[in-house]
């Protein structure tokens, strides 16, 4: 089985997000870029599956649609154990563009299983996985919290609000993963870091595709209002504040 993990490169989740002066783009100065945490977990699970005896996984590749400055982040996926990486040299404007570019590669390279994260921590679109499946005409399974592989049979679990589902899927398919799929992401070993350089990272030029989305303007969320502490014994004051100041009673 050949597994492809889609990697998006996002600002470190502790970043203080700022926009450019015109408020029409993210201000990228000083941002530390990381592998999208969901995608990192997807990759972790793929690596775990490969390590199981008789898993039949012959290749784990990663794919990313982005410009050259994302390569250090892609290197990390190779350092933790992906066999090869592909970067499509394009800054995608929306999920459809990303999915279309990835679909083009998947069609050529005949992967059996494509894994994506539930969403990416930058625009939180939650769309690439399903769009990709649609473009490929493959089955897609969203919000998967457990994944195992036996031959070409893929067993998936999805946690719902009131029940959990077990799904038996057949390759090829697209799986969008969420919490629970793997424990902590892996820390690359020094040997992994040194050998990452010698693994293939191919750069592919994008195919033509017209995005369907355009960002007009970003806005900062309203600042959180101050928290006022009221003594536990002073219920009267609490009611008074809720009624007359917060106007919620």
């Amino acid at each position, binding site marked *: 089985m050949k597994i492809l993990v889609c990697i998006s490169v996002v600002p470190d989740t502790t970043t203080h997000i700022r926009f450019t002066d015109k408020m029409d783009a993210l201000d990228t100065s000083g941002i530390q870029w990381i592998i999208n945490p969901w995608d990192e977990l997807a990759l972790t699970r793929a690596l775990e599956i490969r390590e199981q005896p008789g898993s039949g996984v012959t290749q784990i590749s990663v794919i990313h649609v982005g410009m050259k400055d994302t390569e*250090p982040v892609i*290197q990390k996926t190779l350092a933790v154990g992906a066999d090869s990486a592909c970067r499509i040299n394009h800054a995608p404007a929306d999920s459809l563009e990303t999915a279309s570019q990835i679909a083009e590669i998947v069609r050529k390279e005949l992967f059996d299983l494509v894994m994506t994260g539930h969403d990416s921590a930058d625009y939180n679109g939650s769309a690439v996985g399903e769009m990709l499946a649609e473009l490929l005409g493959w089955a897609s399974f969203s919000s998967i919290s457990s994944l195992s592989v036996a031959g070409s049979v893929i067993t998936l679990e999805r946690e719902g609000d009131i029940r959990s589902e077990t799904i038996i899927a057949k390759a090829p398919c697209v799986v969008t993963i969420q919490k629970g799929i793997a424990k902590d992401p892996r*820390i*690359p*070993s*020094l040997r992994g*870091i*040194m050998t990452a350089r010698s693994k293939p990272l191919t750069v592919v030029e994008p195919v033509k595709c017209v995005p369907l989305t355009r960002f007009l303007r970003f806005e900062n969320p309203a600042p959180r209002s101050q928290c006022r502490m009221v003594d536990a014994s002073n219920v009267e004051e609490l009611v008074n504040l809720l009624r007359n100041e917060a106007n919620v009673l």
Partner: protein
Amino acid sequence: MDFQLSEEQKMIQQAARDYANRELIQDVLERDANSIYPAKHVKALADLGFMGMMVNPKYDGGGMDTISYVLAMEELSKVDASVAVIVSVNNSLVCYGLEEFGTEDQKEKYLRPLARGEIIGAFLLSEPEAGSDATSQHTLAEDLGDYYLLNGTKNWITNGNSASVYIVMAQTHPELKHKGINSLIVDRNSPGITLGPHEDKMGMRSSDTHSVMFTDVKVPKENRLGPDGFGFKMAMKTLEGGRLGIAAQALGIASGAYERALKYSKERKAFGTEIFNHQSVAFKLAEMYTRIETGRLLCFHAAWLKDKGLPYGTASAMAKYHCAETAMWVTTEAVQIHGGYGYVREYHVERLMREAKLTQIYEGTSEIQKLIISRDIFSK
């Protein structure tokens, strides 16, 4: 001149940081309180390749440069300097000496498993009556033809109990003074070796420190490192690199305390405002940051010299002196910024302060570093 780290160096730094923040932090307080040796962390760090970072890959090491080693030591020490010293001793005192001065046979037999971190090593120079003055070795390595007969006591030995291999400095030709000292590779299982009790230390309580007694221990001749009488020189050469590891450790202790103090100063309020708005707190943080960055440059410079094959003894003495003093000052002030909270274990800074103290003492006290630096400037 290039002040940028390479992508690989950044990845190594991040790997060490991730391990420290994810794993070491979990049980650091408990191990400190109860002096528990971090066996599982040593194994995990070995699997990640941190126990023989700079050893040539041909001997199963990581083949990293010294800058990467400084980065890793800093990150581990920010969270847990006890674990960092175990890493440091194995890398810069044990593996380095074997790789630099060992024969092929010695490297095959000892360096390989040490570099893989399957076993760890210890470096035995200090004695009850020979610390700063390491020339006055009382431990004897009597030359009896095929082997040396080792008798004496070593003190304060980091990894004393956990090590499988000892690098022991001992006197063979007392009449030649320090030129009569040899450096021997000693199997920990050799008959005649006994350990003193675990030292109950002020800080670095998770690293195991013991005195080690040798009574008629036979050491095969082929276990001598370098030519007859080379031991003292070998120890001093090795300590040049060791000091850089300790400088980076001190740097990490300082930056760990600084980061905690900075965060706390933005959270804690007094007199109606976050305490960093009080200038005496803000200036203290500015000074911490400046001293730490100075130390970082000194460490990088010494590491750079070493990687270039240039003399770096004085540079590493300056790095160690400056970083150790900085660590002591920064951690003391970090406790101060935390107020009463700084004085309890939960907030970590009191532990960092206890750990900082040792960096002014081992692998050459601050006074000895100044001795090295002053001798160098007066010889020019």
